[in-house]
């Protein structure tokens, strides 16, 4: 009975842990994807010769924060606008000239786009002749940063609480297990068993319990990951990506099982050792 209890507790702890791990995996990926979308738009002077535009592009390309650059012609900008606001097609049709400027879209490297580096880049580009205006969605940057913080916060708060709780629960269950066999340990010592002889069965038992708990929780987690999107339906859009479960990688799964084994082993070791004193 008590062994069933141990496995269940270990399994539940790991299941909760795994759920958060999986969610956190996901948030990190979303954060990374958002990070890829850091875009600075350099609006060019109207009727700037293509040669100058290319020069500006090359200058921007030398900055270390730039990942890639893309020229957007005035026609392209107009088409985009029309696609985005079909109701305004009439308005544009009424215009003689294309009111949209050509621009260069610069995608930043998220790993290097620190506030100082980006500020320096923006300043140098603003000062460049031929660049009419520089647009940079600071809000997005802030949002990405905050999302990163959020991921870490969830990781630290809940993950921390749960790891501690798991360890506490598991080691206590094993302690109770050992306590219920305190008598046995004492008797083995009294008839001349060496400490190693006495420890081994407990260590094996604890490790097996831990591994079992880890494995069972992985199975539940897999089921959950399969079942969750089905239940949710497929129309959440961006939100769904943000909150859906992503399967743990094989190494993360192995880490969970190995964690179970280590916890079981350590828990047994410390618990048994208490009774090997006299």
């Amino acid at each position, binding site marked *: 009975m008590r062994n069933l209890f141990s496995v269940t507790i270990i399994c539940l702890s790991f299941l909760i842990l795994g759920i958060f791990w999986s969610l956190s995996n996901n948030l990190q990926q979303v954060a990374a994807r958002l990070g890829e979308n850091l875009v600075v738009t350099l609006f060019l002077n109207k009727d700037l010769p293509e040669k100058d535009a290319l020069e500006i592009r090359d200058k921007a390309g030398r900055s270390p924060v730039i990942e890639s650059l893309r020229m957007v012609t005035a026609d392209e900008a107009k088409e985009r606008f029309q696609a985005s606001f079909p109701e305004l097609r009439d308005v544009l049709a009424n215009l003689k000239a294309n009111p949209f400027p050509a621009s260069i879209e610069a995608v930043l490297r998220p790993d290097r786009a620190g506030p100082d580096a980006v500020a320096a880049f923006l300043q140098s580009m603003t000062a460049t002749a031929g660049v009419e205006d520089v647009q940079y969605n600071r809000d997005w940057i802030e949002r990405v940063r905050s999302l990163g913080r959020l991921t870490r916060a969830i990781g630290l708060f809940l993950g921390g609480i749960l790891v501690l709780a798991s360890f506490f629960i598991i080691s206590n269950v094993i302690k109770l297990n050992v306590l219920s066999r305190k*008598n*046995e340990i*004492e*008797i*083995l*010592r*009294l*008839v*001349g*068993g*060496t*400490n190693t*002889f006495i420890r081994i069965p407990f260590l094996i038992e604890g490790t097996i319990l831990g591994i079992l708990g880890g494995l069972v929780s992985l199975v539940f987690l897999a089921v959950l990951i399969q079942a969750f999107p089905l239940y949710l339906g497929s129309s959440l859009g961006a939100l769904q990506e943000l909150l859906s479960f992503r399967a743990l990688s094989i190494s993360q799964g192995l880490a969970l099982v190995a964690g179970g084994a280590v916890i079981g082993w350590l828990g047994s070791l410390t618990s048994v050792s208490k009774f*090997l*004193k*006299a």
Partner: protein
Amino acid sequence: MLVSDNLIELFHIGHQYQRPHWALSDVSLRVKKGDFVFLTGPSGSGKTTLLKIIFREIIPSEGQIVIEGVNILRIPDHGIYKLRRMMGIVFQDFRLLFHRPVFENVALPLQVLGVPPKEIRRRVFNALRMVNLQHKLGDPPAHLSYGEQQRVAIARAVVNAPKILLADEPTGNLDTELAFEIISLFREINKQGTTVLIGTHDKELIRHFGSKILFLQAGKLLGKDALPSPES
């Protein structure tokens, strides 16, 4: 050789479980190899305490104790098994694995030594036959009467033909005939070389078998005359 003659030597042993009461005070004694000694005294006089000190379940508050020339108070915790392996012990509270078969209980001292299973079986059968329990071999002690449990404890103590046999009130739950049988058994083992120390309050047993008698009274050893005084 002085060492080979005295198997167990206690020097001024005193023990306090709790202040201010001394459960034992200034107990000095020698037990020679091959001795058959009764340790007696009224309830609460310190018999169990003295035996527990000898098998190092309790570290005495004062004094030294030497067994086979080794000061056992100096043995580290992880080395005690060597001391225990040369002893067979019958505990006043039996200390059996309550829910494991009698066979397993009696086999324990052999298993920790790594004796091969066939030999274990032979010796366990033998020991159980000596205490008249061969028919209860598969039952757990939880399903036995008190006297039967006590006999399991006795079988476990003698199964390994130990150098020293310590028995604390081994006949408290046995009728007189059985008690005599058990002590006769101890006598036989003693003749084969085991040193035997029995804590008991049964005067009749002592009268019948008594050779050397240690008498405890409120933690002090009287009747030392029954043994060569350690000071002499």
